[in-house]
């Protein structure tokens, strides 16, 4: 685990020495603050439900900017040659980088919790619902980062990595809408199951269902495994 930690610390060092992490966190927090204020004044109800939906969409657009550099920058700068010739297993590299990006997500999540201050000051929100929403938000974010990290390993170009990731994430978010166009039961079930928004919606409603947790866990594990396997195969 010490090598995973070394990669993790290097990633954090790089994130905080480049403007991308600050920019991504700032855009996300400003956006979240705007949606929170808008939703509270519009509905007059002390709830995070609407804000969570907006935060999720914002996440799909902002996180690719965090994940795009993870491997694409290594390819571009030639440091991948160092990483792949050091005594470092692909899974250690993949996990260390993933944890680095998850730390940025954690900062975003923690920063967005500032919205809870006025919510608790002036209203009586349901703590368990909010907690479930944040858990869902964090799981969704981790799945987005794992997918983004995988696509980042496929290209040297960070912009290409970000654009492909945004496209794939939006496809996963909206795939549930295709359900109503299908006559086949199998396809309807498949589209419904693959929908990020459908699984996330359960958390927003305050439900932490094992099926939804497992769904995101499987997506994360699959993306990270693909990532490590690709690095091994590339050699």
């Amino acid at each position, binding site marked *: 685990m*010490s*090598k995973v930690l*070394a*990669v993790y*610390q*290097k990633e954090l*060092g*790089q994130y905080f*020495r*480049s403007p991308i992490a600050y920019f991504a966190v700032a855009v996300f927090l400003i956006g979240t603050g705007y949606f929170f204020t808008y939703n509270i004044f519009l509905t007059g109800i002390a709830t995070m439900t609407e804000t969570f939906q907006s935060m999720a969409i914002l996440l799909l657009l902002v996180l690719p900017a965090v994940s795009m550099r993870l491997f694409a920058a290594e390819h571009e*700068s*030639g*440091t*991948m*040659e*160092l990483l*792949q*010739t*050091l*005594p*470092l*297993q692909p899974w250690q590299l993949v996990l260390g980088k993933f944890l680095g990006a998850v730390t940025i997500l954690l900062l975003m999540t923690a920063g967005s919790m500032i919205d809870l201050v006025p919510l608790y000051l002036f209203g009586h929100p349901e703590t368990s619902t909010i907690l479930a929403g944040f858990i869902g938000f964090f799981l969704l974010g981790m799945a987005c980062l794992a997918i983004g990290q995988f696509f980042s390993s496929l290209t040297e170009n960070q912009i290409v990595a970000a654009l492909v990731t945004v496209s794939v994430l939006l496809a996963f978010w909206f795939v549930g809408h295709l359900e109503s166009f299908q006559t086949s039961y199998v396809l309807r079930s498949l589209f419904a199951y693959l929908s990020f928004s459908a699984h996330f919606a359960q958390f927003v409603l305050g439900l932490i269902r094992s099926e939804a947790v497992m769904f995101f866990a499987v997506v994360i594990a699959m993306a990270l495994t693909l990532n490590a396997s690709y690095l091994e195969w590339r*050699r």
Partner: protein
Amino acid sequence: MIALESVSKKYGARTVVQDLSFTVEKGEIVGFLGPNGAGKTTTIRMIAGYITATSGRVTVGGNDMASAQQKAARLIGYLPERPPLYDNLDVRSYLRFVARIKEVPRSSVDIEMERVARACRLEDVFRKEIFKLSKGYRQRLGLAQALLGEPEVLLLDEPTIGLDPGQIQETRSVIQEFGKDRAVLISTHILPEVTLICQRVAIINHGRLLAIDTPEGLQRAAEESAIVALRVGGETRALRQALLAVDGVTAVDVEEADGDLIAQCRIDDRSGIEAAIARAVAPHFDLHRLERRQPTLESVFLHYINERETTEAAA
């Protein structure tokens, strides 16, 4: 320490390295020479474990790079052609990261970092961010990371590119010192560098090994085509006949220059041939100058490269 057995690398239909076999022993510095696109970097990358061979076997310290790459990686220090640096880290953080991945014990990381920084003269920039470093410092930092953890095998792809003469001298000293009890393979274009620091030289072109020997051995082998040049006064035809009559002279080129004749005799490798030529020429011609042109490593290199190309063209 390093052994390549019939190693080939193909990218689709294109063969970049073909049937390459050689070894580098402990305590030996081997220079890897070849023109651009000869397959030097691909070969070094295969030894470093960055890419795998299409066929054949690469072993480092007895570990097969195809099945025990991680074990072999612990023995290797590698400086790629382009130093693999993280611009937004500082020198210290970068070296610390590499040291930790190379499993340098936590208690000796600082000592090890100081050792390589001193060897590569990086003390002045130890806390500087890498993007602020000059090309020379970047190259030296790349070498420093390769030296971290005292690897048994050092692979250097163009290690002195971008360095000024003083730095080149220092880097050579570092490599020579390091190579005393380790195996070092250096790819370079700088021929004097090979003569100065390498015990053996491997010449590669179009992915094939053309020759591997000591620099002196390669020069001796190329002496078959050594040349004795002379400047004389006299008549062209008579001079040519006189020279061709000397035992050991295989071919003669004569041309006029400023009223004199410049003759180039291609000779075989027997000794004392210059004296025989002088004896044959001096009584009948005004002999102004006679010299044997020793093949330099550069001419040896070109000899092997051109010989191969001529053979291939004929085939």
